[in-house]
């Protein structure tokens, strides 16, 4: 009897191992139509909407789609491991941090021929920065633009009311933001911070100050930086002033700026449009409102010129695995996501703004009760594409840490520290680019 039980257990174990091995639907074999596609994304906020759009595609194609979320850090570890010899998902997101490395190594499915044959995809309709990002230097296309995002100022009306400070307006300069933050921090004796920004809030934070004042974190040819220039230093000097009335570094390093904001400990943060949903569904969302990012009155005429207000924009791309068994279906899914219909659905459902121009108006209406028009208005001013080079993570991480901007963040009273940090940053970026 015992033997039979033992045998039974052994068989069960073997069977479960085999089942685990055979679990991946898409890969292996070639030319056959897949019955299901695996899609990997990193943003849980978008999972529901993306799955709904994918289900629409399933209705016509008959191929099931499983959308799986892997958080940002693990996403890249897993994808790289998959690319190095494991199994990759069939269709997945690409990002400006890493896409060049993936394109150069032919990890991604070449979409050029499919796009050429497909009359429904017109590459000129997409945002140029996003389109260029996913096109290799030899003109081959490896991902279609999924979306674009912009940055705005998020503030807590209840805190502004409590301390009798006027709400942010579209005429605000960064100095106005400083005054308001100062009034709140001082009015509350430091129990509530006027604003909060961590060194890691780059695209959604201090990069925008650098550009407003005329500096460039990465130059347009992606081969250099002007972060050590006087213009960039002026921007970072403004940043330093804001930090003197904002949450200290020790606080934001332990509790993220988003959590500080949602727990009513800080009155203002800057955030990207990809985060709207998490604030829209937050407990006290009635108190939250968005405003245009402040501008820098560089020429001193008191009005905002187009080139005085800058918002970063970035766009994800839909890419597929180069070794996928059923490239036709993968392309078809990507093309649907990036078609006018898919892009409009994406905006309507409040997932994100589109990668295609002129499809995002519905996005503003996707959040009844919360006015998110500043994200769309930001496009009337200047946009810069999120700074990237071939291996962005290397310098991006270094800039956040000690030896670069963590030092002035730690001690914002010292103006020289910020200027030194800008010089250090110049060197960090130049060295990193030289090593790429």
């Amino acid at each position, binding site marked *: 009897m015992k033997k039979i039980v033992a045998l039974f257990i052994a068989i069960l174990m073997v069977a479960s191992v085999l089942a685990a091995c055979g679990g991946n639907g898409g890969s292996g074999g070639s030319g056959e139509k897949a019955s299901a596609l695996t899609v990997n994304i990193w943003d849980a906020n978008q999972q529901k909407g993306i799955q709904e759009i994918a289900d629409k595609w399933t209705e016509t194609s008959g191929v099931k789609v499983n959308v799986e979320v892997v958080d940002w850090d693990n996403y890249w570890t897993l994808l790289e491991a998959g690319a190095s010899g494991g199994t990759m998902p069939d269709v997945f997101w690409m990002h400006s941090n890493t896409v060049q490395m993936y394109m150069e190594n032919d990890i991604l499915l070449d979409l050029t021929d499919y796009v050429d044959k497909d009359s429904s995809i017109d590459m000129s309709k997409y945002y140029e920065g996003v389109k260029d990002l996913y096109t290799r230097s030899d003109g081959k296309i490896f991902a279609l633009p999924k979306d674009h995002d912009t940055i705005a100022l998020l503030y807590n009306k209840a805190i502004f009311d409590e301390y009798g400070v006027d709400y942010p307006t579209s005429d605000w300069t960064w100095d106005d933001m400083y005054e308001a933050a100062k009034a709140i921090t001082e009015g509350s004796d430091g129990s509530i911070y006027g604003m909060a920004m961590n060194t890691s809030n780059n695209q959604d934070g201090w990069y925008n100050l650098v550009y407003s004042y005329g500096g460039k974190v990465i130059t347009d040819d992606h081969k250099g930086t002007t972060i050590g220039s006087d213009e960039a230093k002026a921007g970072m000097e403004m940043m330093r002033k804001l930090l003197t009335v904002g949450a200290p570094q020790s606080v934001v390093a*332990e509790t993220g700026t988003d959590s*500080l904001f949602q727990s009513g400990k800080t009155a203002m943060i800057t955030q990207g449009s990809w985060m709207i949903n998490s604030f829209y569904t937050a407990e006290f969302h009635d108190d939250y409102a968005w405003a245009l990012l402040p501008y820098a009155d560089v020429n001193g005429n008191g009005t905002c010129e187009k080139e005085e207000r800058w918002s970063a924009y970035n766009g994800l791309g839909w890419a597929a695995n180069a070794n996928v068994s059923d490239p036709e279906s993968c392309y078809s899914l990507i093309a649907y996501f990036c078609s006018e219909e898919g892009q409009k659905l994406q905006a309507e459902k409040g997932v994100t703004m589109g990668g295609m121009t002129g499809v995002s108006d519905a996005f503003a209406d996707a959040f009844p009760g919360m006015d998110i028009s500043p994200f769309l208005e930001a496009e009337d001013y200047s946009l810069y594409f999120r700074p990237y080079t071939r*291996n962005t993570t290397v310098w991006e991480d270094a800039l956040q840490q000690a030896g670069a901007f963590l030092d002035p963040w730690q001690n914002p009273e010292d103006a020289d520290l910020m200027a030194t940090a800008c010089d250090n940053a110049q060197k960090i970026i130049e060295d990193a680019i030289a090593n790429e």
Partner: protein
Amino acid sequence: MKQKTLRKKRTKAQKREMIWALCFIAPTIIGLIVLNFYPVINTLWQSFCKTGDFGKGNTFIGFENYGKVFASSEVWHSLWNTIKYALIEVPFGVVIALILAVFLNKKLKGTSLFRTIFFLPMVCAPAAVAMVWKWLYNQQFGLLNNVFGTNVAWISDPKIAWISIGIIGVWSVIGYNMVLFISGLQEIPGDYYEAAEIDGATGIRQFFHITVPLLSPTTFFIVQTRIIGALTIFDLMFMVMDKTNLALQNTQSIVYLFYDYAFTQGNKGYGATIVIFLVIFIMIVTFILQRAEKKLVYHP
């Protein structure tokens, strides 16, 4: 010559037995080769290379990576951080566990309940443990500061962050050490204690003159495995410390540094070199410990 005769003597049945034996250990051997030996050799090879993306295009560069590692203050600083962590975790983890084990080895009511409670941290996933402690330590909303009415930056003050991390390590490891100690204690014959009692030895004298020497093989085993464990610590720092935390520099362990280079920055070759550096260091420590074993451990 003797070997040869032995070989000849092997019968058919013995041969068949050997084949079967090989079959039975094959899963383990294959597992070891695929999951341990191959990665070890590959890591060693990568440490001599400038690695390309996605494991392609590695170029041999000799000892260049090693030169960089030895010249890097960051690596030495991380090694020192790791040693500091070990200096907290190993002594405190061992002493506290030993005291608890002695108490819980007595025939008291509820010992099994207490044993379970102390062992619980060992059952929890390290990542979950780290997350809970991270919130306990939080300066703004943390339980510690709230209960004591203090405003200490437990994990972002570079002066104390390494101690805070060490405390989590001690807490996590006590249960495991304790169970090993209890099993060691149960192997000490009760006669010794009876004889000592008749001679009039107090409980404390008994502890230092009977328990400690007779337990020394177990203690040595625990110390040695815990030193190796502490030197390869990674998850605590990774989960508790944010990248923008100023104290990170003073707490990041050497495995954390390896992770950062190999996986975040994608510089596999340099990462591999850091790990080989750590392996060599652990080998030296283990060698010294093995040499000291004869002197430190009491063999009756």
